[in-house]
């Protein structure tokens, strides 16, 4: 009897969460899946069951080149945010000794995030432009005699903005993991004769893995779904999956957009699953 009551009460206790998930996650997701099989014309979506949306999406060379492009941005952004994020976290965790300074420097990292990320992105444009600050400076210093065109409206600009925007997502979880590392392990490594690099490789990196995995998931999912950075920084010249979805919505092609969204969701889930295979976040937390 007692177990029955506790069973019931635990069902009761999880019901608010379950309800929220159902209303705000499961139902919208199912709607998207359902609509992705519908038909559409210029101004209406027509309930139906057709595979045309997926057929076109998966059969078109445009889709493949867009996915390739999006993955390129995701991988490049991931590599750079990981390198920078890890370095910053390492510095904060192991080189800054006082807790006060750790907090102060950590806050310093977050300050840029108090402004809207659109503003942070747009502010690159006058800086990198043909007649922008950087090009004027380089020309005045005599380093180049022609403005560097690749700085703006290019893949370089997109990755730069992404790295700038999302490095903090890497810093925070890695820093968190590093702070949990027992300092005596590092001392032990040193006592056993390990060099600084060996300690990093055999002790710190393995123990920071959960943080690295969480940061990677954040960065990759955000970049895979991004459309506004790609649009603004590439000057509309490059496409990403998110941008494709946004265009389709703009043209009222909701079923096509839904199909794209479902394919993107599956792709991202596969990536996340692969990451979770490498690191058991649950065990490490």
């Amino acid at each position, binding site marked *: 009897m007692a177990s029955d009551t506790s069973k019931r009460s635990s069902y009761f206790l999880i019901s608010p969460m379950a309800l929220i998930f159902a209303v705000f996650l499961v139902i919208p997701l199912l709607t998207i899946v359902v609509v992705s099989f519908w038909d559409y014309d*210029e101004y209406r979506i027509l309930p139906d069951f057709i595979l045309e949306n997926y057929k076109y999406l998966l059969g078109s060379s445009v889709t493949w080149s867009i996915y390739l492009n999006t993955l390129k941005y995701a991988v490049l952004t991931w590599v750079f945010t990981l390198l920078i994020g890890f370095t910053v976290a390492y510095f904060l965790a192991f080189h800054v000794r006082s807790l006060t300074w750790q907090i102060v420097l950590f806050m310093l990292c977050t300050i840029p995030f108090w402004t809207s990320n659109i503003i942070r992105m747009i502010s690159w444009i006058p800086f990198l432009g*043909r007649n922008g600050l950087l090009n004027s400076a380089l020309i005045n210093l005599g380093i180049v005699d022609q403005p560097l065109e690749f700085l703006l409206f290019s893949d370089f600009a997109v990755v730069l903005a992404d790295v700038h925007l999302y490095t903090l997502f890497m810093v925070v979880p890695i820093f968190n993991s590093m702070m949990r590392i027992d300092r005596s392990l590092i001392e032990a490594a040193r006592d056993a004769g390990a060099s600084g690099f060996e300690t990093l490789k055999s002790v710190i990196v393995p123990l920071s893995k959960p943080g690295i995995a969480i940061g990677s998931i954040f960065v990759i999912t955000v970049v895979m779904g991004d459309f506004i950075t790609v649009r603004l920084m*590439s000057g509309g*010249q490059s496409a990403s999956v998110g941008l*494709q979805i946004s265009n389709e919505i703009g043209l009222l092609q909701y079923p096509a957009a839904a199909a794209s969204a479902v394919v993107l969701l599956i792709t991202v889930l596969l990536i996340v699953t692969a990451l979770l295979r490498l690191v058991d976040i649950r065990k490490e937390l």
Partner: protein
Amino acid sequence: MTIEKKISKKTIETETGVSRRGFVKGAAVVTGAAIGSGAITGFPTIWAQNIKDVTLRQFGTGVSNINAVADKVKEDLGFTLQMTALDSDAVAQRAVTQPNSFDIADIEYWICKKVFPAGTMQPMDTTKLKNYQYISKLFIDGKLTPDSEIAQGTAPHTVGFVEGADSVEFASAPTQWMTLIPTIYNADTLGIRPDLIDREITSWADLLDPAFKGKASILNIPSIGIMDAAMVCEAMGEVTYGDKGNMTQEEIDKTIAVMIDAKKAGQFRAFWKSFDESVNLMASGEVVIQSMWSPAVAAVRSKGIACKYQPLKEGYRAWGGGIGLAKHLSGLELEAAYEYIDWYLSGWVGAYLNRQGYYSAAPETAKKFMSEDEWGFWMEGKAAEGDILSPDGKVMEKAGAVRDGGSYEERMGSVACWNSVMDENKHMVRKWNEFIAA
């Protein structure tokens, strides 16, 4: 400003008096006694009181959703006009799927071609519009002057009339039933930075001239971008079109192939989607030649940067919009809507639009609300004698300036193609996306 206001009020009062009185007959049933008392102001009180409670909901694209117009309606006509600005795709969808969510639709003619047959709007009886006679011939039979040629694309007069009050069939000749009363239109061309280009620009083909490699831009709105692309391809002699406004799949494929080659060769610096993006690209010098809209050229110039709205020998790509009535309108609201539409044509709005660099559908009435110098500059292509001010009083052009492209007749008389929607729209959008992703 105050003088002009006074004049406008006076004109409105005298000009619209007749039709109002006609309406009053109907309203008089409710409270007959009050009619005489309103005579002092020229506005019958009964009418003014009833009409005050009317709210008309207008929705449309940003260009003509001007708050100053709503304010002026309140002042001149007494009722409230609520405006909602949406992008053109959303406008089209809403007009079809939510017919009760609006009273007045402010849509472009190419949207009308798709929307009106859906039966959610009602045509207007032109005999109830006193200012109908002043509407430019361009919207009646497609000919600005008797010998002008009718342009390709969705020319407004082709979707301007239907056969009868309940018809959704577009009429081939003007009838008593008009789908949209034209409000705002213009002729678009390429914008250039004359200070950064050292030769004459004369053709749409110049957009893809390798001399401007990495310094050109085109707008990334598929239905409009494809037209600009077609003007370019035709001018280059790369593609010949039966009708640029309604291309075949093959014509679309060829056009996009030319554009993809140009993109791969690095011709374009960027693509723009919004008005301010086009202004920034031009003002910062990232781009020296691109598709552009007239007010964007004005915005670049107002920063003190040289920018020219270059007339080209192949002609302009034109667009136009108008206001139409929702099907559900009846009674007092319908009368108010007719009042509003007649007022729209009576000149004040026309002058306002002319001063923004657009054109009024009834130029003659707009003339009364503009100074001679303004009229000369905007409409006749004459050099400005004094500074030319925008509707909100900013200096747009200094004395001595001449409008790019010249007079109304020169500009609207050389339209090569109107914005349109193609039968192969879905195919076109897919090909356009290939171009963007290439």
